[in-house]
């Protein structure tokens, strides 16, 4: 099954000023993507933008699938105008998804901003395991997917930088509070290790902090990284990150990496 395919746009819904949810229907059967995997997508057939852009699986609808995106630059500001009937060329699913982990461990999901795009996919796939979700954003209007999460039975703990929704502050601080309470009141630090697994996606500073947190609480954590990509398939070496095991490609060995492997 070649990973190069075209999809027709089914719907392209504006969620906030800068956020859109696009529903795509592959024009041929594709491999079922795993949460954490991504697609490289051409928003146009022209030469500008030139390269395909990476977008994470947001929701698999058993054939159709959804991407959640923010309009930040050239490609995304073209993508937002795509309408039903338009056809987009893409490659995927690419990379490795989030590893599920043993079924007894609790699942902590942490999403910063658009990090909710892939984290939601994971939340949906593990919703029966009652994951806890920590969701940080700049302000109220950047807090996405709350409704959809509720329908999965997940009520995220929310923080915003400006306090316009949830607690004011960083989501990682809330996570630290939570883990500290767990360690001090319920369990010895050592026990937290096996009790939870953490999965996170968000801006770099948040992920760096996540590495520190998982180390401190000796938790197994997985981080979905982003790096500028040209090929998406491991050929160009543009997306490398430094790990304890040498340079690794976000597109190929990632985008999900064990938190302890990343050298920040």
């Amino acid at each position, binding site marked *: 099954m*070649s*990973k*190069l395919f075209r999809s027709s746009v089914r719907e392209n819904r504006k969620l906030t000023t800068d956020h859109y949810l696009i529903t795509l229907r592959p024009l041929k059967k594709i491999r079922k993507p795993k949460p954490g995997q991504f697609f490289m997508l*051409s928003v146009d057939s022209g*030469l*500008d*933008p*030139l*390269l*395909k852009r990476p977008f994470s699986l947001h929701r698999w609808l058993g054939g159709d699938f959804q991407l959640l995106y923010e309009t930040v630059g*050239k490609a995304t500001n073209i993508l937002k105008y795509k309408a039903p009937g338009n056809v987009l*060329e893409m*490659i995927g699913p690419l990379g490795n998804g989030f590893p599920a982990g043993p079924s007894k461990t609790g699942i902590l999901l942490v999403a910063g901003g658009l990090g909710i795009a892939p984290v939601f996919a994971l939340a949906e796939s593990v919703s029966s395991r009652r994951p806890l979700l920590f969701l940080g954003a700049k302000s109220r209007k950047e807090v996405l997917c709350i409704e959809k999460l509720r329908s999965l039975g997940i009520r995220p703990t929310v923080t915003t930088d400006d306090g316009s929704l949830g607690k004011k502050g960083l989501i990682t601080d809330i996570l630290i509070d939570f883990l500290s309470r767990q360690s001090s009141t319920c369990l010895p630090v050592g026990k937290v290790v096996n009790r939870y697994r953490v999965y996170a996606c968000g801006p770099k500073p948040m992920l760096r902090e996540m590495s520190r947190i998982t180390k401190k609480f000796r938790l197994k954590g997985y981080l979905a990284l982003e*790096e*500028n*990509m*040209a*090929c*998406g*398939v*491991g*050929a*160009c*070496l*543009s*997306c*490398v*990150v*430094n790990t304890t095991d040498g*340079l690794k490609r976000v597109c*190929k060995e990632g985008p999900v990496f064990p938190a302890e492997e990343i050298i920040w």
Partner: protein
Amino acid sequence: MAKKKTLNTKVSIGRLKLKNPVMTAAGTFGYGEEYSKFLNLNNLGAIVVKGLSLLPKQGNPPTRIVETPAGMLNAIGLQNIGIENFIKEKLPFLRQFNTPVIVNFFGDSIKEYAKAAERLSRVSGIQALEMNISCPNRQAGWSIFGTDPKVTSKVVKTVRNATDRTLIVKLSPNVTDISLMARVAEDAGADAVSLINTITGMAIDIRTRKPKLANITGGLSGPAVRPVAVRMVWECSKAVNIPIIGMGGIISAEDALEFIMAGASAVAVGTANFVNPRAAQDIIAGIRSFMSGQGIHNIKKIIGGVNA
């Protein structure tokens, strides 16, 4: 109209015979594996692998690429697994295909160039060597290999003496007169020249006031540079008698034919692989259909065929 089966797309680069003139450009096609699921490697004229050095290299820190209008800047910095690892881990895969393998390589001194060439020449399954003297992303001083005619002459001569494989010298566009550099390479014993490598460029994030690439500058490639590359191929084709491998922004069969008419015996597809992982194969098909549409039976008939 020429019938499809009677089309002759064979070209020669030195003693190397290619079934068609379309190869991949170094550094844009990994070690071949990565794209083998998208196209049939047997269909390619040749596979040029990511630039290798004697020892593995780390390359530059990220951010390593940034898109620019109709192009991209890269500052990978020649990260590679090293020649020995390539021979052990990657070459066996490539040997399965009926397509010549061209190894792009570099050194940080004339001695290292020679050693690398020697080592690569002792291995079967490598049909030609492309020496990269023109990467804009190495440390200061490195660029003289590709911009100072005296140094170029010396390094090419030394490598020439170190290998009996078809030797291709990859030229830098960051010079006043590329045809002079092509002549220098020819005189020093190159079997062919390939051009262009990337043009040095820079992009700045005005909000953070930092260069977008960690390496500050990078190499510009993609359609944006094509007119410059075509001009340089044309200039070189008037200056040397050895074959030219043309590249720089080829994204379609039309683009490839522009290079061929400008004087390239073969072409390489680089950045286009990222845009369309099947680009090289699509371009070969497109060349064939242009030939049959125009009644051109033999591709050699149009090499250098521009009326200028």
